[in-house]
C-alpha cells in the first residue's frame, strides 16, 4: 500500500506500547506510608530505598502521594513535625493496570509527574506504581525477549523442507576426517549433530545419527589415513555413509562381534578400540550395511527413519 505524504511507519516500539499493559511493567512491590506517619519518617525511607516519592495508603485505599519535593518544602518551611496527611498531594492521577502503556506515556508527558499509582479497575485497590524508569525497563525486556525468539527462529532451519518446492528433497552434508588426528577426532560428528539439530530433526534421530557418525569417524581416525562422512537428509530419513580408502577389514563378521578389536594398545589407553564401534553403529541405525576389502577400503552405510515410533 502506498501513501501520499510522509510515510507513516509504525516502529516496533510503537507497536509494543499499544500491546503492552501498565500491569506488565509496573513495580508491584510498592513501599507506602500511612497518612498518620510523621513527615520526619520520610527522610529515612526515601534515602534507604533511593526513591523520590511514594503513595500514601490507608487500609487498601490510596489516599495520596508524597514526594521528595513535598519533603523539601516541609523542611524549608521549618515547621514542626506533622502527619504526612497534611503535606501530601491528595488530588490523585492514577492509572489502571489494564491501561495500555501508550496512555501512561501520554500521561507522563502531559503532567510532568514522575510516577503514577496503579489501581485495579474493578477492586479500586492499589496494585503497584509506575515510573518512567519502569516503562523503559519493561520495553527493553520485551525487546530482548522478542529478539531472542527471533534469533532462535532464524537459527532454526527447521522450516527448510517446507520452503523448498520439489517432489523430493535431499540435503547433503559432507565432512572430511583426518586419519591419526586424535585431537580433531569427533569434530565432524559434533558439527553434523549441531547441523541436524538446527534442521529441527527429532532429538532421538539426531542422537542416533550422531552416535553412528562418531563411531565411524573414530574408526577412520584410528585405522585409516582418513576418509569422509556424508549425511543425506530427507524429510523421512537420514542416510549416513562413511567411506575410506583402506586398509579395509579382513574379517567383517568378527569385526561385528562386540568386544572384538584390532586397535593397538596406545589407542586403547585413550579409551578407544573397545571393539564396540561397529556394534554401536549397527545398533543405532534402522538398517546397516558394510562393504570392506583389505587394501581397498571400507564403506559403511546406515539409514535412520525419522518417523520411527511415530506410527
Amino acid at each position: 500500500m502506498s501513501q501520499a505524504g510522509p510515510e507513516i511507519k509504525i516502529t516496533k516500539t510503537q507497536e509494543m506500547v499499544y500491546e503492552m499493559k501498565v500491569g506488565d511493567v509496573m513495580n508491584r512491590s510498592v513501599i507506602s506510608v500511612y497518612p498518620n506517619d510523621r513527615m520526619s519518617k520520610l527522610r529515612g525511607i526515601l534515602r534507604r530505598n533511593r526513591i523520590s516519592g511514594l503513595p500514601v495508603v490507608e487500609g487498601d485505599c490510596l489516599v495520596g502521594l508524597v514526594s521528595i519535593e513535598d519533603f523539601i518544602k516541609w523542611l524549608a518551611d521549618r515547621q514542626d513535625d506533622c502527619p504526612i496527611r497534611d503535606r501530601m498531594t491528595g488530588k490523585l492521577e492514577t492509572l489502571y493496570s489494564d491501561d495500555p502503556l501508550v496512555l501512561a506515556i501520554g500521561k507522563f508527558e502531559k503532567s510532568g509527574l514522575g510516577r503514577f499509582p496503579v489501581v485495579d479497575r474493578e477492586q479500586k485497590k492499589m496494585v503497584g506504581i509506575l515510573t518512567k524508569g519502569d516503562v523503559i525497563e519493561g520495553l527493553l525486556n520485551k525487546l530482548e525477549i522478542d529478539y531472542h525468539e527471533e534469533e532462535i527462529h532464524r537459527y532454526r532451519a527447521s522450516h527448510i523442507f517446507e520452503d523448498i518446492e520439489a517432489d523430493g528433497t535431499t540435503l547433503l552434508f559432507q565432512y572430511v576426517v583426518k586419519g591419526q588426528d586424535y585431537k580433531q577426532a569427533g569434530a565432524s560428528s559434533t558439527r553434523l549433530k549441531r547441523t541436524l539439530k538446527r534442521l529441527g530433526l527429532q532429538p532421538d534421530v539426531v542422537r542416533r545419527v550422531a552416535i553412528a557418525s562418531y563411531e565411524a569417524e573414530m574408526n577412520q581416525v584410528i585405522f585409516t589415513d582418513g576418509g569422509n562422512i556424508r549425511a543425506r537428509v530427507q524429510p523421512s530419513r537420514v542416510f549416513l555413509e562413511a567411506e575410506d580408502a583402506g586398509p579395509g577389514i579382513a574379517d567383517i563378521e568378527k569385526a561385528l562381534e562386540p568386544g572384538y578389536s584390532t586397535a593397538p594398545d596406545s589407542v586403547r589407553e585413550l579409551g578407544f578400540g573397545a571393539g564396540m564401534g561397529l556394534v554401536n553403529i549397527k545398533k543405532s541405525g534402522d538398517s546397516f550395511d558394510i562393504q570392506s576389502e583389505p587394501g581397498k577400503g571400507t564403506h559403511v552405510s546406515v539409514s535412520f527413519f525419522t518417523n520411527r515410533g511415530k506410527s
Partner: protein
Amino acid sequence: MKLADLVETLGLEVKSAQNNLARQVTGAYVSDLLSDVIANSAEGNVWVTLQVHVNVVAVAVMKDLAGIILVNGREPQQDTVEKAEAEGIPLMVSGLPTFELAGRLYGLGIRSANVKVSAEPETG
C-alpha cells in the same frame, strides 16, 4: 540432584563451564572406554572417568551428558578444558579414586540409567 549439589557435597574442583552447573543429574555412568560410554550412558548423566584427553568432551556432547568427573585428581589437558568450555560441558576433578567416588555418588542417591536395582538387603 543438580551438578552444583554434587560439586559442593563431593568437593569437586570445576575446571570448565562453571555457569552450567544448574543442570539436573539423571544418573551416573562409570567407564574409561569411550564406545562403552557412547553405548550405555544416558542423557543428563554424569560420567566418571580417568580419561583426560580432548575426546571425552566430544563423547559428552554426543550423548548430552550433564558433566564429566575426573578421578584420582587427574588434571585435564589444556585443550580438553578449552573444548569443554566452548561446548559448555562441566569438567570436574575429584581427588577420590573411581571406586570411592562411585560409592559416594550412590550414597547420594545417584543411580545408573536403565538399571532397575532390586531391593537392597537390609543391614543390621
